[in-house]
Structure formats: C-alpha cells, structure tokens
C-alpha cells in the first residue's frame, strides 16, 4: 500500500517544511514574523508531505518538477527511471569526453549531470513572452515580461515536446533527452533555436509593446 497525500485539504492546514536548515536555526536569528509563523505551526494542523518531497540533500525542486511534467498517466516510476537514465547517460558522455581531452582542456569539461541539467534549463528560458491582446477588434501578439515560474515552465515544456516529437522512432527518450540537454548546455540545438525564434517574434512586434496595461 503506497501512502499518498490527499489533494483537497481544508484551507486551515499549513504546508509542511521539509528542509533541515529551517529547524536548526536558533531562536535569536528569527525575525518577529518568523517567530509568529513558528507559533502558528505548533497550533495548526499540517498537510501530509507528498511522496516526492524529501529532506535529503539530493532533493531538487526543479528536477522534481521536470519529472512531473514528463510523467504520463501518473506513471511516476517510469518518468523517474527515464530521468535517472538521462543523468547517467550525460555523465557517461562527459566522462568519455574528459578522458579523451588534452591535459589543458580537462578542467573545463563539466561532469556533474545536475549542473549540466540546471545550466541547460537556464539557457533555454526565454526572457520575454508574447501575449494575445485585443485592441480595436484585432488581436495583436504583444511582448510581455514573464514571471520566473512561467519561464521555467516554457523551458521544460519545449524540452519535453522536442524530445517526444523530433526523434527517430528507435531512439529511447533518455538518449534523446541527454543529447538535447548537452546541446542546450552548449547553447545549440532545437530548443535554443525555439527560444531565439520567440525572441525574434517579440523583437518584430516591439511596436505593440504599448498595448500592455500592466
């Protein structure tokens, strides 16, 4: 029997705090608001932590979000398996490159797959997005600033859709994903191209920027 947290809670319930650092801070370091929050946590009930949330050092919220986005029909086991194989594949390729490289260039090769994943996602995030705004009966594509969450979502979505659609039917998902992530790390590849196309559209429509009202 798997223990799963419910999805609907009374709004009275508070979110669980999983990080160890939040509890090891002494009383003196806290500001008055944080002291109030701590008191509230002793009185109010707390939601059960989701299965994927851990207090271990390897818990990565960005990675968890990416795995959730890759998941289909609730098959978290498969999505996580694909992600782990991807990271392993990246590590293998980078270590191979490291051993083949000349002595001078050895330190520049990044072998940590998590660092590669984060940097690749950062390189894929668009800076401005387009919004469809109606003015005078017509709809215009207006360049708007995006929030951090939205940008992260776009980067992940483009990566996943690109890996699902533009691959040979015999290549595995992890293989294609590792290729795309390494390409994004080097700022090449289809996802980076997509980001540049969005930027070009925004630049072309910069005249409509005043149609925004926020």
């Amino acid at each position, binding site marked *: 029997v798997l223990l799963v947290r419910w999805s609907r809670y009374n709004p009275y319930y508070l979110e669980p705090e999983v990080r160890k650092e939040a509890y090891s801070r002494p009383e003196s370091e806290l500001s008055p608001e944080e002291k109030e929050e701590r008191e509230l946590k002793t009185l109010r009930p707390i939601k059960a932590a989701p299965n994927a949330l851990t207090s271990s050092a390897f818990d990565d919220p960005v990675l968890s979000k990416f795995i959730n986005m890759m998941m289909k029909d609730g098959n978290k086991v498969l999505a996580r398996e694909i992600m782990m194989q991807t990271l392993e594949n990246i590590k293998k390729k980078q270590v191979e490159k490291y051993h083949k490289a000349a002595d001078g260039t050895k330190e520049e090769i990044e072998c940590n797959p998590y660092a590669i994943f984060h940097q690749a996602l950062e390189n894929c995030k668009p800076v*401005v997005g387009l919004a469809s705004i109606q003015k005078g009966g017509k709809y215009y594509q207006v360049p708007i600033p995006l929030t951090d969450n939205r940008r992260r979502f776009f980067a992940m979505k483009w990566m996943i859709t690109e890996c699902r659609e533009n691959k040979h039917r015999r290549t595995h998902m992890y293989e294609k994903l590792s290729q795309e992530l390494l390409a994004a790390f080097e700022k090449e590849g289809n996802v980076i191209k997509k980001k540049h196309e969005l930027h070009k559209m925004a*630049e072309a429509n910069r005249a409509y920027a005043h149609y925004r009202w926020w």
Partner: protein
Amino acid sequence: MAAQGGVLFQEKVSRLVSKQNGKPVLKPNRPLVLKDSVANRKPKKGEASCITEMSLLMACWKQNNFVDGLCSNEIHSFYTCVQKTQATKKNMSEQGDITGGRLSPKQATTLLRRFPNLQSEI
C-alpha cells in the same frame, strides 16, 4: 425590522407608482428589492511598465543577432525593473484596500452576503 423604520419611504414609493397625481413616475417591472452584491469597479488602465528596458534589450538583440551572452547587462536590468514593478504593485494593492475610508466592491459584497436581504419570511 427595517420595514417599520422605512414606513415613510414605503408611502413615498406608493405615491410615485400610483396614477392619482397624473402619470406614475415609476413603472417597475421587477420588485423593488436591493441585491446582495455591489457592482464591480472598473480597474484603472495603467501604462505598460519597463518599456525602456525592453527596448534597450531588443536593440541589443538586434545588434548581436540574438546571442544572449553578449546582452547579459540589459537582461539583468530588465529583470530588476520587472521585479521592482511587481513589488510596487503588490504594495499598492495591499495599501489601497485599507485607505480611503470606504470598502472595496469585493469587501462590500462579502459583507452583504453575510447579512442578506430577506425577501420572504423564513
């Protein structure tokens, strides 16, 4: 009950509706009953924020053929501008609800829903 305090009001309404003093002033097709909600105020249309930063960024992109590494300064200034505007908007919306002495439409509606207008005897 409020109806007893408004007896004069009821008489005035019946005078306005009756045909005795010439044409009736009011011809209500619905019962004259107050709703339990207040109409929403149209939010003021502001201006687009951070346009100068965005135009600088676009110019930089045009010059450098959309390579992001060369435009990092402009990107950074754009992000700081966006964060500033978001912070100011948050502050404005928080303060704007309390000051003014009047309730916002949302607050008025919640209050009226807690004490609704009774239309029939329960």
